[in-house]
């Protein structure tokens, strides 16, 4: 297993480096930071703009290769360059990563765990009322765009607040300005967590239901029942245990991407996370920020892939044998 992991690690490092480089080159070639300076009123002289862009390594008149070289050298030393208004990208990146993680972690974990359990339950009750209810509910959730869901939740929370006469739910920003208590943070994170959780839940329950249906009539579940296990425990201990292995792989990959996919939730609830920053930076033509987020995403997906390999290997011994 160790040799296999090392090989995979080397593979992923190479793939990550390639993705990061391509990300930078694409951002540098497509985005136009000059427009941001030239659009200012009063318009600064060309020489000043040039000097400023060169200082930030954003000048489109420097050959792409040179810019890439300077940027890559920085990355190797842990320096992500500067934003178009001159602040270091690195510090902001880590701060925003923290925000995104606080926003997403609880929802993603709750949503996927619940999704797996409910999906498995739906499969066990296949064709009955419970299954129909869960299935149509999750289809509905999959079909509703995240921002619609978020706004609907806000409306419902508003009504609940009015009915109770206290502001139990808060949904603007991460904290109320001037307050920093734990309770305040919890109040603010309930709605975004539910939003993330519901969307995750919908996807996972669909996947898990399909996987579980495959093992519902598996011979080994029947063997477990012949041993004297009841249907439910046979399905959970043998069926779900087998059917959850492919899901673990999916979980790792999906969470790598979730980080960027959280942009709608961040926007709607006013959390200043990674996704929001990416969209804003693309608008501003801020090459270094986009490249840094690309770098983060590449590392995230690569390491998520590695985690998924490990998880899959741990959960399914056949994978271990095949390597």
């Amino acid at each position, binding site marked *: 297993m160790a040799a296999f992991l090392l090989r995979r690690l080397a593979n992923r490092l190479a793939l990550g480096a390639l993705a990061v480089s391509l990300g930078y080159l694409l951002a540098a070639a497509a985005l136009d930071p000059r427009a941001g300076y030239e659009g200012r009123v009063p318009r600064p002289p060309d020489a000043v703009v040039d000097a400023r862009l060169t200082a930030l390594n954003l000048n489109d008149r420097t050959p792409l290769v040179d810019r890439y070289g300077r940027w890559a050298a920085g990355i190797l030393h842990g320096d992500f360059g500067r934003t178009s208004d001159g602040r270091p990208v690195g510090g902001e990146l880590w701060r925003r990563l923290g925000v995104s993680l606080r926003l997403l972690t609880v929802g993603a974990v709750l949503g996927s765990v619940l999704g797996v359990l409910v999906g498995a339950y739906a499969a066990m009750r296949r064709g009955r009322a419970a299954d129909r209810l869960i299935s149509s509910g999750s289809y509905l959730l999959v079909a509703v765009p995240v921002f619609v869901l978020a706004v609907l939740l806000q409306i419902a929370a508003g009504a609940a607040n009015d009915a109770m006469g206290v502001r139990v739910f808060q949904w603007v920003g991460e904290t109320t300005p001037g307050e920093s208590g734990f309770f305040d943070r919890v109040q603010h994170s309930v709605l975004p967590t539910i939003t993330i959780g519901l969307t995750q839940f919908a996807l996972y329950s669909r996947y898990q239901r399909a996987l579980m249906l495959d093992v519902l009539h598996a011979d*080994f579940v029947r*063997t477990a029942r012949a*041993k*004297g296990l009841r249907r439910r425990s046979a399905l959970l201990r043998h069926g779900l*245990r087998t059917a959850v292995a492919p899901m673990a792989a999916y979980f790792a990959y999906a969470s790598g991407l979730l980080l960027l996919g959280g942009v709608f939730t961040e926007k709607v609830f006013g959390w200043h996370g990674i996704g929001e920053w990416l969209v804003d930076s693309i608008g501003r033509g801020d090459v270094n920020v986009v490249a840094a987020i690309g770098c983060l995403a590449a590392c995230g997906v690569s390491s998520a892939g590695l985690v998924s390999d490990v998880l899959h290997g741990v959960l399914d*011994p*056949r994978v271990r044998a095949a390597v």
Partner: protein
Amino acid sequence: MTVLRATDLTVRYARDVAALRGVDLSVEANEVLGIVGESGSGKSTLALALMGLLPEKARVDGSVRLGARELLGRSDAQLSRIRGREMSMVFQDAMSALTPVRTVGDQIAEAVRVHSRVGRAAARARAAELLGLVGVASRRAGAYPHELSGGMRQRVLIAMAIANEPSVLIADEPTASLDVTVQGQVMDVLRAVKEASGAAIVLISHDLGVVAGLADRVMVMRAGRMVESGPVEQIYRAPTAPDTVELLRSIPRLDEPSVRESRDGSVVLEVDGLVKHYRTRRRGGTVRAVDGIAFDVREGETLALVGESGCGKTTALMEIMRLSRPEKGRISVLGEDTARLNAARRRALRQAVQIVFQDSRSSLNPRMRVADILAEPLITHGTPVARARERVSELLESVGLEPGHERRYPHSLSGGERQRVGIARALALEPRLLLLDEPIAALDASSRADVMNLVEERLDMACLFVAHDLATVHRLAHRVAVMHLGRIVEIGPVDDVYGSPAHPYTRALLDAVPIPDPVLARRRDRVVLRGEPPDLMESPAGCRFRSRCPRYAMLTATERSLCEEHDPAMLPGTDRMVACHHPLVGVGTGR
């Protein structure tokens, strides 16, 4: 004392589709009831109905009584307390019957813990003990199902079933899909279980031969009904129902003389020193699938290549089928060395070499009609379409299919019919050399007999017939070559080899063939192979069969040293050859 009794048991899936119609059975303690029938006769449905494990949509009527208690109509919770403790089941196809992601020790320990309040450690100890009881080294408790061989997996299932010493044990085709040698071992385990526990055993099989050695009474089923039942001797000696007679007739028997007279035509296929090794990434080893084999097949002659699964027989077949340069050695077809063929000659030769595959379900294109399947090789090799159509009708007729089958798709045919299509497809181009890769292994006993008869009638070209047991090829082959771990250990005319096997392995294979005669089956003095075929990747010095060889075990130290140090070679040039330092009978010259 009757332990289990079923009365008028009927199972319906839909309103009119009855899988089981009014079956009665009873088993006493310390008695083995054999249930025999073709696939689809309702045997497995019966077993599951007794256990209460039928799918929920099935409707069960009648009565199943375990001791004094009625089992039908009980809840899953109530039945769970009985299943695995008082009544347990051994399933067929142990690979899919074991949970792939949990160790076998864990799965056995679970069977213990479900029914008694014992700690984890105690259950684990009991699991190890049970494994020892069924002949699996207890250190294998930590292994996952895919890490065990088929025979060991089946033993694990038996260990699980006897964990709580049940009073009724139902075994559903416990030896299907196992090699004959391993089949014998598993049956011995069941026999030991019966003697040790005094449990009532219901043994289900499509093979009357398997049942003969163990059952006290036999029940024959067809289309969901019982057609005959009685003491085992009576069923085998004086069967009354036509279905029983048919089942008995379809079993290949070794005690009947072979019917094929030998031919002496020109050599069609010549294989010399053929080697095929696979390199595996894991452990960086080499699998010696075929490790230097030599034989020839003459015009009008059938040579059977026989050995346990994994001995390299199919690999050898595929190497011949490739018609290109082998890794080592020489293959020549119709006098042409396959290593020297150009593309045009190879294509022409492909027409002369055809193959019938083992699994007709996966070897026929499911999207093509039978007519198109048969016409394809003809058209590929330049037959005009109109002529090809005519030829398709001739072919169908020649393999005993109706003209109406032309328009059908493979999935709507029975296994036997599909295999006929496979044979017709192979015969379409009138090959000079026909390769048959276990053409009947996947078929029912009765369709087996039909397909064998067909093959027998049609085999007038040179044939290489691959099979995993000796009984199948007895009637068909002129000569037989026995393979073990990539080598041919004995080769010779069928009557000589079967009559007086020279290699201990041939003897063991012959002894492992179940005899469909309860008296002979119990009386015969069998040589049973211990263990399983060793790993193809290890190649120990000296004789490869040594570790399993019953003869080696009886040799003196000086005699043994020959086996340990020298790889036995096949002496060339004679009609009958054996690769053994201490053959059971002298063969050829100079021995």
